[in-house]
């Protein structure tokens, strides 16, 4: 599997396949289905400084080739994570990245700081793009200026690999990408969910308790791929691409568009073994096409 290793900041991934935050629990929910040791890394659930109950039910609407969610970062807070969850998962044979969210810049920084001491958490993913929380979240990710502010504050207190997760709900994603890069992000991950909505025509009400929610799944793939390609052409740091990946073929598309690694989100729900299948599929594609190393494929799109 040497063809597949990839470097993201200080992270040496055994392969470019990771799982996306909010769709993979803490990894342990998948051990019945797959060998986590086969994956490049896993991004665990969105974690905040304080415990959050998330949004009210209903939080989900199925949409054509995708779904809307309005979970709203339900989690027990970083301290609970550190003392109760971390010990259970720290010995997984893969890299564990914690996805960090907050309502204020101080929350982000404090949460990141508390995670920085954990030996087996080599990096965090800064979620400045969650559309499902009232304050903070996506608001930080939709202007270059506020994105820069968050990244700067976190960078000051966090020395390990810092991945910044971008929102697709913007006119020009490259602006935000450059701002995050300038403030010292080691890598960018994209896309988070697209802001969407669904209506129950019998009740004449929104399906989601929060009216709008985040769209994910195969339906967003064309938009995600375009944004990865635009961002690849705008920054020098490695990109982690995601949005609708449901097969190894999709993963190759994202790599050709400029992703150094990829994440699989929603499709884990449909096929909890998909991440392992994608690892195998990429390996075979390299073999069949006589490609010496996955690196030769990153951004190798002929335009």
């Amino acid at each position, binding site marked *: 599997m040497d063809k597949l290793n990839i470097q993201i900041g200080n992270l040496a991934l055994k392969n470019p396949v990771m799982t996306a935050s909010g769709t993979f629990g803490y990894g342990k929910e998948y051990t019945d289905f797959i060998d986590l040791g086969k994956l490049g890394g896993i991004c665990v659930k969105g974690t905040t400084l304080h415990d959050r109950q998330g949004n009210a039910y209903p939080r989900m609407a199925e949409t054509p080739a995708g779904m809307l*969610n309005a979970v709203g970062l339900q989690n027990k807070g970083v301290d609970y994570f550190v003392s109760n969850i971390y010990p259970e998962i720290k010995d997984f044979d893969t890299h564990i990245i914690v996805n960090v969210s907050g309502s204020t810049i101080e929350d982000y920084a404090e949460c990141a700081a508390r995670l920085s001491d954990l030996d087996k958490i080599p990096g965090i993913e800064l979620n400045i793009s969650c559309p499902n929380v009232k304050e903070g979240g996506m608001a930080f990710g939709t202007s270059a200026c506020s994105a820069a502010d968050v990244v700067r504050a976190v960078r000051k207190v966090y020395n390990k690999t810092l991945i910044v997760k971008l929102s697709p709900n913007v006119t020009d994603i490259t602006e935000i990408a450059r701002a995050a890069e300038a403030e010292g992000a080691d890598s960018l991950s994209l896309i988070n969910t697209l802001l969407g909505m669904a209506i129950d025509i019998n009740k004449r009400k929104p399906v989601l308790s929060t009216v709008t929610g985040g769209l994910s799944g195969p339906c967003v793939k064309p938009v995600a791929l375009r944004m990865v390609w635009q961002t690849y052409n705008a920054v020098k740091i490695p990109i982690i691409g995601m949005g609708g990946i449901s097969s190894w073929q999709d993963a190759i598309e994202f790599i050709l568009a400029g992703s150094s690694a990829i994440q699989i989100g929603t499709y884990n729900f*449909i096929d909890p073994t998909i991440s392992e299948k994608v690892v195998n599929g990429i390996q075979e594609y390299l073999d069949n096409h006589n490609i010496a190393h996955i690196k030769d494929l990153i951004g190798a799109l002929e335009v």
Partner: protein
Amino acid sequence: MKKMLDLIVTDNSQLNQSYCLLKLSTTNSSPLPEMFPGQFVEVHVTDSPTTFLRRPISVNFIDKEKNELWLLVQAIGDGTRRMATYKKGDLVNLLLPLGNSFTPPESSDKKDRVLLVGGGVGTAPMLYWGSILKEEGYSPVFLLGARSSKDLLQLDEFAKYGDVYTTTEDGSHGEKGFVTNHSILELPDFKQIYTCGPKPMMMAIANYAHKHGITCEVSLENTMACGFGVCLCCIENTTRGNVCVCTEGPVFNIKDLKWIN
């Protein structure tokens, strides 16, 4: 241990206009994974252009002799309508077993009366649970409700495991009205109630049980995206906060829910 596996359709019979009974077995005659009453499976519908997520369906019955899993499916949208077309020999991809299960009656006195109340497609998990209770030596009583007599399904099956009472909205079978108005509830001498069905029905039963101090478990059907605890979409706001119905449920003791008014 949860598994993703392809089962083979051994039989699929249309019970009435909108219900079918789908029977599945393993492809290599190895025994089915162990499943408990109240648990459910997630079906991957692969022939529908509009069905993206898997569909949660309760374990209706396990025929141990024939090594068959039964699913009672009500066709209400494209996903369930496709399931109704599955034919003997087709493969169906499932995640299973999922969720918790019904807990045995609190008192171990097998003579205690135990009531299983099912409404509509909510009768599905009651058959398997009733069969297990009977196996354990209890004498379950079934109270089943539907719109009309043709929607009362598997009555012969239920009768194998206990007394069956019914209600129909149009009075075409059993007492006319809703299960919650059935005369057997007038004397609240049940020690334990289990129920599954439309939420208003379950709420009424829960309030009845609460009023009479009867232990009661309900099986929820919150909409789900994953079915195994990772999406956090199926939550119910319980006394211990928002919990996942797909892992900490679908079966809940009513004392943990915020239903009682």
